[in-house]
């Protein structure tokens, strides 16, 4: 059962060829990490999955909708596919509680009290119940990101996308965020994670995708083997640069 399918997908920004002939299938419950040098198209690829970026050709099926088809209602996709951003993107004018409950009440039109209860449970899950009435500006980066994850989870999505969720965080707060992500992965969520956290990619991900220059160069289900012996020279070079630091 596949959740996300790319078939021969191409994406351009004007003349710049951002994604080249992408073919990728993510099954339900899979945790796929995407790594690669900056500018390789990782974030672009992730952002196409919930329609924040449009693709120009090919087929992109997400939760049985074709995103390459201009007639597809993106809002329907986004209800089911959550996104966690590098810079959190919490609503600055809403409290933590409102950040979490706005989507379910406004978009899914669910009962307020019910959503409120669920939000409290999610805040417990990310360890931030005491911040329910704070504004995002009063939170640390790691706290913001955990709230952002709770906000996505409140929509009860079928898949979650993470766009470098720890890249903007102080080192000491990264662990809390990764712990939350690990718990979600263990709960069976379909996840696509663009990250530089090799530990997460190695130990939590079931599959690893290496990208460079807008192409998928390596797609390995044996994550351990990839890290020990990457096949592609570009991947070898990339890993040696990261791991030697």
């Amino acid at each position, binding site marked *: 059962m596949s959740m996300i399918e790319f078939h021969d997908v191409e994406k351009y920004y004007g003349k710049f060829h951002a994604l080249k002939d992408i073919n990728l299938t993510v099954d339900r419950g899979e945790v796929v990490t995407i790594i690669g040098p900056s500018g390789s198209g990782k974030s672009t690829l992730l952002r196409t999955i919930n329609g924040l970026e449009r693709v120009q050709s090919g087929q992109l099926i997400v939760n049985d909708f074709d995103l390459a088809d201009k007639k597809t209602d993106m*809002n329907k996709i986004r209800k089911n596919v959550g996104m966690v951003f590098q810079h*959190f993107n919490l*609503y600055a*004018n*809403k409290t933590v509680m409102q950040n979490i409950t706005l989507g379910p009440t*406004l*978009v*899914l039109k669910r009962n307020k009290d019910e959503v409120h209860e669920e939000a409290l449970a999610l805040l417990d899950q990310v360890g931030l119940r005491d911040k329910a009435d704070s504004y995002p500006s009063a939170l640390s980066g790691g706290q913001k990101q955990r709230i952002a994850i709770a906000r996505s989870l409140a*929509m009860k999505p079928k898949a979650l996308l993470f766009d470098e969720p720890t890249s903007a965080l102080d080192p000491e707060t990264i662990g809390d965020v990764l712990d939350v992500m690990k718990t979600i992965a263990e709960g069976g969520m379909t996840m696509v994670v663009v990250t530089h956290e090799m530990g997460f990619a190695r130990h939590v991900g079931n599959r690893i995708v290496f990208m460079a220059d807008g192409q998928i160069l390596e797609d390995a289900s044996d994550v351990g083997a990839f890290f020990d012996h990457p096949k592609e020279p570009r991947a070898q070079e990339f890993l040696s640069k990261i791991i030697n630091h």
Partner: protein
Amino acid sequence: MLNILVNNFPELMSGLGYTLMSSLIALVGSLIIGTAFALMEISTHRWVSVIGNIYVEVVRNIPLLVITMAFYVIVPQYIAQIDGFTAGTIGLTIYTSAFIAETVRAGIQSVAVGQMEGARSVGMTYSQAMIQIIFPQAFKIVIPPLGNQFINLVKNSSILAFVAGFDLMYQGKIIANATFNTFDTYLAVGVLYLILTMPLSYFMRYLEKKWAVA
């Protein structure tokens, strides 16, 4: 000056009333029209944003007096009978709306792009995201420049004097002509304008402080 105030009190108060009414109507009207054109300017549909841009550039680059005269002369001749007050207030509304459009547009664009993406990523529509997330933040940012526009608007309402709009400036002109006491008359008129604009100034400052908390 007190003499002028006391002797012409009913006229001045009536003028103050017309100025206040014209200003209030133009304030609400220009805020609505200006916001609508701001949204058009940032639209991703090319022709919509072109129309928005043309409106703003044409209207803000024509003198207020010319716009008002157009409504005072042309509209009654070809479209409908309107009096000076109406023509002046419409002119003031249209003129101010172009400046408010630019102010609101700048405010919307100064809200981080991520705010819109965060909202869209949970499935909110463009208008839901605008209403819930972008507008509240944008208006907070534009309160000081918006305050400027509102104060200018109240002062610009003196344009009504040119089209027999019975406003404060119009009454001042009549009183000055009748009494020959030009200096004291316009001093009194100036003080009465201050009575309108100063509270507005302080109200905008109050809003700025109040909304800065969240």
